[in-house]
């Protein structure tokens, strides 16, 4: 299989390089007309004018030659036959623009698009641009229109990237206020969240209420739900690729404030470069401080900062530096406070070596630190964990007439410090402890090609190879293979010196997408991908919490592997006013991490004794109808999907639910989202979102008994019950004060009502003994209407 794939790719490369006779090279850049900023990932449709005899007369007929996608700096290049063309560029949040051109020699084009401000085709999160729905080879991709997030209904005044994503089919969370998101039945840690190519290990502020990335600083955000580009890997379910506003040719400032936080942005160009700084600081203690007495000890704070610097040494060589820092604290009135924060930095060198060949070299650092402060008298301690990620990578892009070839590779060094406990305060009785650092190295290399086979058929095929080595030092235990793994079944202990590989894993990861256009308005698209994951979030709770920690694959923790197939029918109607699609997927997952019943995970040097490998499968159908133009825009989507897990240990006692498949925590069969935006006039827009989801699986007690003179609740079947269904309506009125598109000084006001009918959607239901009887309690996190007002001023 692998060999065949290799030969196929090789053949592709050979074929591709031989087809460029009688062609010229068309290169160009798509920019924002007002700011002169490049528009990343803009779509360029290349249409050839062909003379045809129609009704007895000769006429020029437009024939689509190809559709391109610009790179992250708005550039594109394509070999095309000599001839007359209409080049059309478009981008999310921009008006479309066409240009007639007679191509005789190599040509460079500058295309400038105007921002859509109060125009009506300003729909929030769109899968793609008008014809892209049908014509692009990508499927299961969501591109977020970041500008429009400010107009959506928001909670506590925070425009939120991940909340906007959850309005799309296939993206859910386990509950309100839960950190992270789940894509197509996958776990939270299976999403690769990249901020300027640096991985972000925790995307939460305030324990999960908000996303830790300030939307004001974000230029683009794209979520790949199925086939991620071959360049990326290391996570099972999805890729969320976020880039910050790094480049500008126009000075821009913004400040904004809401009930919980304030933020500011500054973008400043200079000769051959530009700089961007943004920051957000929260003051939730204002809110927490006014609480009834018993909550008054709660304290929280968070902040985040983004910075970017871009400099062009020559038209062909440029350097981009980006940085990110976030921090969070949350203290409960009892004796504990939690803290977490991320630091990320990327340096990128880009060179256009020839008109067809460009190279990007990147150095990436990401550091995630998290932990707990114990504040109990006499037992003060600080438990700290750290993830360090260092990466160097290079990517080479080579463009041909019908091919877009990409090769590259990289190396990642991991150092995870799972736990260090230090007593704090002189009277603390806590003994210092430290678990050995985990070291690992991940190598990857890939080739990929986007091949336009014919006007109607194109294929994007990639092959990636990833290898991981665990190089941690410390004790390596050997367990008796005839017994369940426990501390007591250790039969041998070896000491490994740091840097020596103790386990090596790897394999090929094919990524294939295809598009077959049936007509100009309808197509079939599909894909297959394999992904591998070498880092795992160890959590025995339902959502990400600051006491969960990350662990590298090793001798007893195999990489997770997933295969996903997807197939869909895409159709546009009424001159692209309506975009629709139906897409089905099937995902097969292996070596998922599950836990023994009652596992103890914290500070456990024998963690492998608590872990069980599981298999999983997820499948579903997503249906979406989107209206892009007119006073009323919006989208309606319905998803039916299931997600299952099974723990099939050879030891019966370790099996969960007797080894049978049971619904995973992310199994929510029915999901409906409605999003409508109505332009009221005078800059006002009314938006409403409605979400309905089946309740997530949960385990209720199904019996009770007496043991050791105590009342014990029996939970005989994991995830056999469901929380009540979740539904919520949010509305907002927003006003954009711009009267024309060139106005530089303006403001956006957002008045939101979150959870308009104040439904107490349960986050969880749990059981406690009340007197002599067990009782159920519901915990609702945002169980009432939440109004908020946010004002942002731009100049």
């Amino acid at each position, binding site marked *: 299989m692998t060999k065949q794939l290799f030969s196929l790719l090789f053949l592709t490369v050979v074929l591709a390089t031989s087809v460029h006779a009688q062609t010229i090279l068309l290169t160009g850049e798509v920019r924002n007309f007002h700011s002169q900023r490049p528009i990343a990932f803009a779509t360029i449709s290349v249409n050839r004018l062909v003379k045809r005899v129609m009704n007895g007369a000769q006429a020029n007929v437009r024939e689509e030659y190809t559709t391109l996608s610009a790179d992250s700096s708005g550039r594109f290049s394509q070999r095309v036959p000599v001839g007359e063309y209409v080049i059309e560029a478009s981008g999310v949040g921009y008006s479309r623009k066409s240009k007639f051109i007679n191509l005789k020699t190599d040509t460079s084009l500058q295309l400038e698009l105007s921002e859509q401000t109060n125009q009506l085709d300003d729909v929030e999160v769109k899968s793609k641009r008008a014809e892209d729905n049908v014509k692009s080879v990508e499927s299961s991709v969501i591109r977020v229109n970041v500008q429009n997030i400010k107009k959506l209904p928001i909670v506590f005044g925070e425009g939120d990237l991940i909340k906007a994503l959850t309005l799309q089919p296939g993206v859910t969370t386990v509950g309100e206020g839960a950190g992270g998101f789940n894509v197509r039945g996958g776990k939270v840690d299976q999403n690769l969240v990249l901020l300027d190519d640096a991985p972000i290990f925790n995307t939460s502020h305030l324990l999960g209420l908000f996303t830790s990335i300030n939307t004001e600083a974000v230029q683009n955000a794209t979520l790949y739900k199925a086939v991620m580009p071959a360049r990326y890997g290391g996570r099972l379910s999805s890729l969320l690729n976020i880039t910050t506003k790094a480049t500008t040719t126009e000075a821009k400032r913004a400040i904004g404030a809401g009930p919980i936080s304030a933020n500011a942005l500054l973008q400043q160009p200079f000769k051959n470069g530009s700089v961007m700084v943004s920051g957000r600081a929260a003051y939730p203690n204002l809110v927490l401080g006014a609480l009834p007495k018993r909550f008054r000890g709660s304290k929280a704070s968070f902040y985040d900062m983004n910075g970017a610097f871009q400099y062009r040494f020559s038209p062909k060589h440029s350097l981009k530096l980006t940085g990110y820092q976030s921090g969070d604290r949350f203290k409960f009135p009892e004796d504990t406070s939690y803290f977490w924060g991320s630091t990320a930095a990327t340096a990128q060198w880009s060179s256009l070596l020839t008109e067809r060949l460009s190279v990007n070299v990147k150095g990436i650092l990401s550091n995630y630190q998290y932990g707990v402060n114990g504040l109990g008298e006499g037992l003060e301690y600080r438990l700290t964990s750290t993830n360090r990620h260092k990466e160097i990578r290079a990517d080479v892009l080579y463009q041909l007439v019908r091919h877009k070839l990409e090769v590259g590779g990289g190396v990642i060094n991991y150092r995870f410090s799972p736990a260090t406990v230090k007593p704090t305060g002189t009277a603390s009785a806590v003994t210092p402890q430290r678990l050995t650092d985990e070291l690992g190295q991940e190598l990857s290399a890939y080739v990929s090609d986007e091949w336009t086979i014919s006007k109607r058929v194109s294929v994007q095929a990639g092959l990636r190879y990833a290898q991981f080595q665990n190089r941690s030092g410390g004790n390596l235990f050997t367990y008796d293979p005839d017994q369940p793994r426990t501390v007591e079944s*250790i039969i041998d202990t070896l000491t490994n010196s740091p840097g020596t590989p103790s386990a090596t894993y790897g394999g090929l990861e094919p990524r294939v997408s295809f598009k077959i256009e049936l007509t100009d308005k309808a197509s079939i698209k599909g894909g297959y991908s394999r992904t591998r994951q070498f880092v795992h979030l160890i959590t025995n709770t339902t959502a990400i919490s600051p*006491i969960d920690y990350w662990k590298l694959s090793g001798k007893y923790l195999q990489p997770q592997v997933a295969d996903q197939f997807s197939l869909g029918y895409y159709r546009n109607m009424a001159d692209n006013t309506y975009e629709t699609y139906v897409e089905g997927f099937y995902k097969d997952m292996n070596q998922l991490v599950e836990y023994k*019943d009652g596992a103890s995970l914290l500070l456990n040097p024998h963690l492998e004794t608590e872990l069980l490998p599981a298999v999983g499968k997820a499948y579903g159908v997503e249906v979406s109808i989107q209206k892009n133009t007119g006073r009323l825009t919006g989208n309606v989507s319905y998803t039916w999907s299931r997600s299952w897990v099974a723990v099939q240990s050879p030891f019966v006692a370790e099996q969960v639910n007797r080894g049978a498949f049971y619904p995973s925590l992310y199994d929510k069969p029915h999901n409906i989202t409605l999003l409508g935006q109505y332009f009221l006039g005078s800059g006002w827009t009314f938006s409403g979102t409605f979400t309905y989801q089946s309740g997530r699986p949960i385990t209720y007690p199904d019996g*009770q008994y007496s043991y050791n003179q105590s009342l014990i609740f*029996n939970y005989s079947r994991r995830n*056999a019950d469901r929380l009540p269904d979740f539904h919520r309506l949010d509305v907002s009125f927003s006003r954009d004060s711009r009267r024309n598109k060139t106005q530089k000084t303006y403001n956006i006001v957002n008045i939101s009502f979150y959870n308009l009918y104040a439904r107490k959607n349960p986050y*969880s239901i749990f059981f406690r003994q009340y007197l002599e009887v067990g009782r159920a309690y*519901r*915990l609702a996190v945002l169980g009432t209407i939440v109004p908020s007002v946010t004002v942002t001023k731009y100049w």
Partner: protein
Amino acid sequence: MGTWMRPLVLLLTLLLTGCLDPVQVPLRQETAQLVVEGLLTNEANPFLRLSLTSQFGSSYEIEPVQGAYVEVRTTGGEAIVFRPVPGEVGIYKPLTTGFTTRIGQAYSLYLKLLDGREFGSEPQLLTAPIPINELRAEFTDKPRYGFQVYLDVKDPGNTENHYRWTGRGYHQRRSKGVPVGFGTAVCCDRCWVLKEDQSVNSFSDALVNGSLITQRSVFLSPFYILGKHLIEIQQYSISRQAYQYWNRYKDQQKRTGTIFDPLPAPLLGNVVNLNDPKDIALGFFEVASVTRKRIEPVASTQGVIAANLTGNEYIPDGDCTSGFPFAIYISEMPPGW
């Protein structure tokens, strides 16, 4: 902050903290599961209770297993029949009196229920008891006033060992008493109050094999008035499997209902349906040798602490034994002491 903002801020705060309400949820009806709670030691008086799970949320009553045929079998081929004890819910005792166990012998449980299902455990070895080296009692004011009892035990180096400790003890209390005759004399104003610690205190020698285990905190005897405390610690040498069972038991009891709770799980033990390995009973048939040691600390030297307590004690009216549960008069020593 302007005054107009206050109501807004208050409103917001209520949302952030979430709301907690008792609710009714649809509960699954599962067939009742077998619960086996067994403890066979090197002493007389084996304990065995066979019960069934009852509907969650019903009143706290033990549902006994009726009419089961029960045997404790030895690897030597002996079978001791256990019979239900009339009047004691779910309790089974040996049919013959004078049942004794032997160190080095392994015991397994066999049950046949009325529905025909047969359950059994693997043979569980009764190991030699490990003596407690020393008990020490230290006065403490945290988490409350009392004697904190510490234990030292020399772990045998040639075997892997697992321990579980329980404790019980009597401490003294006071009431205003019942007047006797015409003077100020009162009777019945001092009594012994029993405290038993049911929390699970288990330990594995995996990391300390063969060394002296010291300062293991095993019991807290609360202090209310000056006087003697009578404390007995039981040390069970348990099997690895039992140790793991008790650990899971402990973890499940720790659930407090926050979003940081671990996922709930059933507490399955070592008694398995002989014809269906996936049908595992709840609870554990434990075979463990036990050693006991007593300590009788006296709270007379703690004058300062006692002075601090003076005036803050809870001293009920009347007879001391009616003021506190499981109390007996101080003039009488508790039975067995």
